[in-house]
């Protein structure tokens, strides 16, 4: 069965390989092998004529195995396997010998050694190839449904695009309303559109679209399965209100006696214990906050035995009394629903560092706010109706300082990266202050103004030339209270002197990070993330929407902080990626998977414990390991842990690897 008509194709890769490795000599040496019938070189194996060469040689020499010595298999393994398949050879009888990254590039200074190393790598690859089996791809069915996690602008766009393509889409949002951070904003740069005006039509489309199932105030509990066939458990958090009956009339809000700080307004405004996030919420439904409602708190304490009422006590039920449709029932209605989907788009967005994280910049003072909090004060729908007022005393500020790069570009005290959107929103906020309060002095302390977008630089110049915003280049180091005012101590690096100015309010453009809880979600989805909570793409430039887990895509600020334009583009892009997957009738899967030799397997279960994909189970009757081919990713963790080599990855069997290593390890 062993192959004895092998063809070896050595690529010059222009001068990348041939400049260092003597490819002619390599071809001659390899040609001396008995099992090799063809050993040749070509300038670019990946080119069309190069692939043709493989196709034709397979037919001409009746090859039963092919080794292509070129670059890393991540680049052209697929190209070469497809070429072989066109020539009539099973694609799994093609192996790549990486002589560019392993021989030519690292040994540029020693061509002789590089040449010998290349020969050795090819010999080892031939040894591995000779025991390769012919394989056929595995076919997997596809569930034509999609899940979008996160109802910000990117998630909304992805859900709408998917739904418009006729794919049933589930949108999960952890907050009681979709809209995300964009809905909190006052106006948007550089066009100064009102985000409520431009986002509500999309939000309403989500609510009314026949193909979209919206789970607001819900979170993804667990994800099982694989590309094309995910099983997702979604937790619908308890609202204590029957949303099927609630009409969103808002009567209950008026009578509720309890007021607490509103999360939607980021602590700038107040809401009741029973609340609707905002007037334009989708879904427009009321819910009760268990931690602030006196009735629920009382009932909880009774349940826990902390209070033992002697007789039945009637606790506040004002909201339920005025509720005409009788929707408020005070009962815990937490529920887990299961959904099956074929693709998942993760659009979990961002959050900003709190002002409190920067005490030197006055983060502890009530009038020192983050920019996102200040958005609420500038928003016409916000707690101050668009006229910014100091949270401490309600005074209209006569002067405001904005500080850029708070925590951004600061690996020692925050994050090393530029948060990308702060320059533009700070300029926008400065403009909006001037709109609302033309007499208010605005000071903008920046390190650089980064305005890299369509119409952004022009926007900056407008702020400078027309709006009367004062820009000072230099980062502020200290903000402290002097009487009623806050003294901002900065520097002007352009004139080289310290600048001091007393202002009424200070706005910090704090660094953006991935949303809270995104790391836990990423673990459930088995997708990678970095230390700041950004989800990692497969390739930063060429595959920015994909993750290493097939069928899971990322969009918007979940990957890295983005402006609205980019988030929407990515939402559509991720939806298109998901559509590509879901439009196929069946998925093909690489057959390089773990296989169990049931004659040897003792059913010890070590492989089962090691499998990260839950693909292995132990057959209770035969007492052997069984691999679920649909779940297996062929990583080999099971094989490495098997005490008897009963479980092995096809075409990566122990014998093959040992023989290859033997060749590589021969003494020079």
């Amino acid at each position, binding site marked *: 069965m062993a192959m004895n008509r092998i063809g070896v194709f050595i690529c010059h890769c222009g001068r990348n390989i041939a400049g260092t490795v003597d490819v002619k000599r390599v071809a001659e040496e390899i040609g001396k092998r008995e099992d090799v019938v063809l050993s040749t070189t070509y300038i670019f194996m990946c080119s069309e004529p190069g692939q043709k060469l493989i196709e034709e040689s397979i037919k001409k020499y009746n090859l039963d195995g092919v080794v292509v010595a070129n670059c890393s298999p991540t680049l052209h393994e697929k190209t070469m396997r497809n070429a072989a398949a066109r020539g009539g050879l099973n694609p799994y009888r093609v192996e790549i010998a990486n002589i560019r990254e392993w021989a030519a590039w690292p040994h540029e200074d020693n061509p002789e050694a590089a040449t010998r190393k290349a020969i050795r790598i090819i010999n080892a690859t031939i040894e591995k190839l000779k025991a390769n089996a012919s394989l056929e791809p595995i076919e997997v069915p596809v569930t034509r449904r999609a899940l979008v996690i996160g109802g910000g602008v990117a998630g909304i766009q992805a859900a709408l695009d998917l739904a418009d393509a006729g794919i049933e889409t589930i949108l999960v949002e952890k907050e009681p309303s979709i809209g995300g951070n964009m809905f909190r904003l006052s106006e948007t740069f550089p066009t100064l559109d009102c985000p409520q005006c431009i986002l509500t039509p999309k939000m309403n489309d989500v609510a009314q679209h026949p193909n979209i199932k919206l789970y607001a105030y819900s979170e993804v509990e667990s994800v099982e399965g694989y590309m094309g066939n995910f099983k997702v458990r979604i937790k619908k958090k308890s609202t204590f209100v029957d949303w099927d009956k609630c009409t969103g009339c808002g009567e209950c809000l008026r009578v509720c006696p309890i007021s607490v700080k509103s999360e939607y307004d980021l602590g700038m405004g107040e809401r009741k214990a029973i609340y609707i996030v905002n007037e334009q919420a989708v879904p427009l439904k009321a819910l009760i906050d268990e931690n602030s409602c006196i009735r629920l708190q009382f009932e909880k304490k009774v349940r826990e035995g902390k209070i033992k009422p002697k007789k039945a006590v009637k606790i506040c039920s004002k909201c339920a009394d005025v509720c005409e449709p009788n929707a408020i029932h005070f009962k815990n209605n937490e529920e887990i629903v299961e959904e099956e989907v074929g693709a998942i788009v993760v659009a979990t967005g961002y959050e900003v560092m709190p002002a409190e994280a920067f005490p030197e910049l006055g983060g502890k003072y009530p009038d020192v706010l983050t920019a996102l909090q200040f958005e609420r004060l500038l928003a016409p729908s916000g707690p101050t109706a668009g006229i910014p007022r100091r949270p401490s005393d309600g005074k209209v500020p006569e*002067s405001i300082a904005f500080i850029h790069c708070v925590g951004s570009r600061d690996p020692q005290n925050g994050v090393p990266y530029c948060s990308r959107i702060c320059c533009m929103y700070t300029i926008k906020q400065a403009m909006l202050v001037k709109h609302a309060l033309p007499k208010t*002095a605005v*000071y903008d302390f920046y390190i650089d*103004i980064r305005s890299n977008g369509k119409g952004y630089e022009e926007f*900056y*110049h407008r702020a*400078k*030339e027309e709006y*009367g915003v*004062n*820009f*000072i*280049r230099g980062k502020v180091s200290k903000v402290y209270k002097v009487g009623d005012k806050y003294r901002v101590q900065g520097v*002007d690096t*352009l*004139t*080289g*002197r*310290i*600048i*001091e*100015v007393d202002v009424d309010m200070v706005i910090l453009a704090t660094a953006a990070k991935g949303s809270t809880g995104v790391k836990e979600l990423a673990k459930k989805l088995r997708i990678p993330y970095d230390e700041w909570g950004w989800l990692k793409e497969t390739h930063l430039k060429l595959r920015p929407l994909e993750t290493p887990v097939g069928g899971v895509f990322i969009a918007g600020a979940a990957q890295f902080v983005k402006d609205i334009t980019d988030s929407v583009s990515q939402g559509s892009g991720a939806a298109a990626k998901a559509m590509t997957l879901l439009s196929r009738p069946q998925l093909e899967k690489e057959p390089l998977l773990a296989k169990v030799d049931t004659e040897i397997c003792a059913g010890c279960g070590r492989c089962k414990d090691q499998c990260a994909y839950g693909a292995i189970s132990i057959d209770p009757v035969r007492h052997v390991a069984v691999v679920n081919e649909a779940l297996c990713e062929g990583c080999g963790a099971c094989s490495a842990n098997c005490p008897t080599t009963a479980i092995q990855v096809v075409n990566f069997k122990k014998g093959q690897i040992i023989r290859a290593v033997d060749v590589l390890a021969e003494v020079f």
Partner: protein
Amino acid sequence: MKYTIKKDPHEDERVQEIIEISGQNIFSCYQCGRCSSGCPMAEFMDILPNQVFMYLQEGDVDTLLKAKTPWICAACFTCTVRCPVGLDLAAVMEAIRELQLRKNYDFVDPYKVEERDILPPIALVSNFRKFTP
């Protein structure tokens, strides 16, 4: 060195006066530095031309009135031609000089100019024009 901004520089009367005399919106300067890098006289100045604009944008006219820079500026217009936002820097320098001269202070006393017999008359004329009200 330390400078305290007392009021919005946009509201400063003297900054407004310079804007009025020169006809230039000094706040449109975004500090690229091209004026200073191309100025043939910059090496003799105590404040670089781009810094002049920064001082103006911070409302610090006092420092500029004490500075040599506006008087060293030869009004060759290299900066004006090269400015990316189209500011006429020479006009602003002239405005600063004007502001100083309007205080009726003579920088040059004609009677104290040495060797005035051998100086070309045009030098004296331009000297009086530039340094006296």
